[in-house]
């Protein structure tokens, strides 16, 4: 584990703890957010027969850096009637919620903040903080559009957590563990051992599970999409209806915090999906480190595979965003309560029965 590595290096609990806590932020989230924003704009551009940012650097690779510099320089506007306390806390809370999830995400077999037994449970719990942040932002903005956005957001996230949890439950039921590290380790070796292909056991159960795993994956993908407020579920932001929803009144760094939280969240849910269904950091084709007999190469490869899979699902999120229209608020609830939750329930039951065989 990475903590032990730093502990052995420094011998201090505080230093190694701090390093481990900040490592995902600086080693991963910030570069990822910079990259993801650029990716989003490039993907959007090319899908729409445009080019996207082209001015800053080669094909605009430094565009997001320039944007961040611009955002830092911007005046921090707080309107007169805003609720100052909540207005200031909200972006921090939102970011904290999405950042806390990274504590238990295993980037590779050694790069893991904390291997707690209730990993997946913890992730679901802390991402709930994001709702509180958004509600606070909407309320404190003292803006009708923001408030509507925040209310919608709360209703949406609460109702979409249920199908997510039901699918997570079916996986937990099958594997018997809630630790994300154990979940990843279970699906080792080759890609047919991944949960989406029925898990590592080679028997009749595996083949029976494949269709239901697929259904489960689609459901959890849709509901996590809703949890991170991406199109077609971006009604809390709904640019063309609510202008920008809960972050209409924010500017400068506070807006950047929301922005960062959104992209961190996008990766966080993709990472959870990867861990639950696509073997976590495991390589689909075996490790180069094993064949070449270089043991230290394996964690690096694992890190690469994890990021690759995660970014692939982030890309699919973007792809969907630039393809689909947005649902209406009541249709969003319908989709969750009438379609996703019953199907997830039935799926859970069937997986339970299969696991008994």
């Amino acid at each position: 584990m990475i903590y032990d590595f730093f502990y052995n290096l420094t011998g201090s609990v505080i230093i190694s703890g701090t390093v481990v806590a900040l490592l995902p932020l600086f080693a991963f989230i910030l570069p990822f957010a910079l990259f993801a924003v650029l990716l989003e704009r490039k993907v959007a551009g090319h899908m729409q027969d445009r080019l996207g940012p082209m001015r800053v650097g080669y094909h605009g690779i430094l565009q997001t850096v320039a944007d961040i510099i611009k955002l830092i320089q911007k005046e921090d506007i707080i309107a007169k009637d805003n609720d100052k306390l909540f207005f200031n806390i909200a972006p921090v809370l939102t970011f904290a919620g999405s950042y806390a999830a990274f504590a238990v995400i295993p980037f590779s077999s050694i790069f893991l903040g904390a291997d707690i037994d209730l990993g997946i449970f913890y992730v679901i719990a802390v991402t709930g903080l994001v709702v509180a942040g958004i509600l606070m932002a909407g309320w404190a903005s003292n803006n009708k559009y923001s408030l509507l956005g925040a209310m919608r957001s709360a209703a949406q996230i609460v109702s979409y957590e249920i199908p997510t949890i039901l699918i997570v439950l079916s996986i937990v039921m099958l594997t018997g563990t809630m630790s994300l590290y154990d979940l990843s380790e279970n699906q080792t070796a080759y890609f047919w051992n991944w949960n989406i292909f029925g898990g590592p056991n080679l028997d009749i159960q595996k083949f029976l599970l494949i269709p239901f795993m697929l259904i489960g994956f689609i459901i959890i993908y849709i509901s996590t999409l809703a949890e991170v407020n991406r199109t077609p579920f971006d009604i809390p932001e709904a640019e063309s209806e609510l202008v920008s929803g809960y972050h209409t009144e924010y500017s400068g760094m506070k807006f950047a915090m929301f922005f960062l939280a959104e992209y961190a969240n996008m990766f966080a849910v993709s990472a959870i999906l990867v861990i639950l269904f696509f073997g976590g950091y495991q390589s689909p084709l075996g490790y180069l480190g094993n064949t070449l007999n270089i043991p230290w190469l394996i964690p690096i490869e694992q890190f690469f595979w994890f990021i690759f899979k995660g970014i692939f699902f982030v890309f699919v999120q973007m792809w969907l965003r630039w393809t689909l229209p947005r649902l209406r608020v009541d249709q969003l609830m319908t989709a969750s309560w009438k379609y996703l939750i019953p199907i997830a329930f039935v799926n859970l039951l069937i997986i339970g029965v299969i696991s008994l065989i």
Partner: protein
Amino acid sequence: MSVRTEEMVLNMGPQHPSTHGVLRLELTLDGEIITKVVPHIGYLHRCFEKHCEVMTYPQIIPYTDRMDYLAAMGNEFGYVIAVEKLLGIQVPERVEYIRVIMAELQRIASHLVAIGTYGADIGAFTPFLYCFRDRERILNLFEITCGARLLYNYIWIGGLSHDLHPDFIRLTKEFIREFKPNLKELNNLLTFNKIFIDRTANVGILPLETAINFGITGPMLRASGLKWDLRKDDTYSVYNKFDFNIPVGDGRMGTVGDSWDRYFVRVLEMEESLKIIEQAIEQIPDGDVTAAIPKRIKPPVGHIYSRVENPRGELGYFIISDGSTSPFRVKVRAPSFVNLQIMDELCRGHLVADVIAILGSVDIVLGEVDR
């Protein structure tokens, strides 16, 4: 225990991404349900009718362009027909054909904007840019013909400012050929998308009786199920020489006269316009386009109401002439102005998100509403 509740007044606009300009809608909300919509217009009022009283007849043409700036050719066409009727001029055949081609190209361009922005209102941004890509090609056609891309001043009283560019026919055929698959792609991406249908079908249903009583015209009226198109029913220019259908709403995805029907009628109309252009290009006669332009435009005393089918509906010009070189009074019956009145009727009982969907399907241009 009773909880005190009160209605919330929400101002949508004048600065809002989805009001298509500077329209302000005063929404009264019960939760997220609309109980009342009051449109406030006039933010873009440019005194068109007052200007007309001090200008000569040809000078008014650039001003008509600026009313419905997405369908400038149609505006000129309507005005010019009205003045020609007052003057009693017969224009050459070639001029009529070119005017029809231009008006139909403009109709496609205008509907592309309507469809694209409608998609953007619903949340799909990509179709918007695909539509603009195709519209750009139509604007290029206009540009080679008259030099301007948006406000043309091309159709003149008695003729046209320029003849067609030698390349025009070839480029138009090329455009038609390449536009047809794009239209199919647009249907795949947006029109038949389940989410889009859910958002628009059964939203803002406009029954035919109400539509006629409110004076609704154009694609909105046709979506409510009435086959009423001035190109056929009160034919002008050479439209009677072409074979085309009038698409009407059939309630395929929901009820007749819902937002989806209004949207889909526009898609179908683009196909019909392509048909008209194809026929017109084949039949276009030779001739001089500037021959019939009168040197001095001084209509006799009288008044005339003349109307054409603009992309947004019936565009009428009521011109009173007092025998001088400038009109005594010009009243424009702008289709968007009349169609916008229906907002309250359509929106009541729907959600805030539906206001966007309904407003987009009414397809207003504020330049025309406020004139």
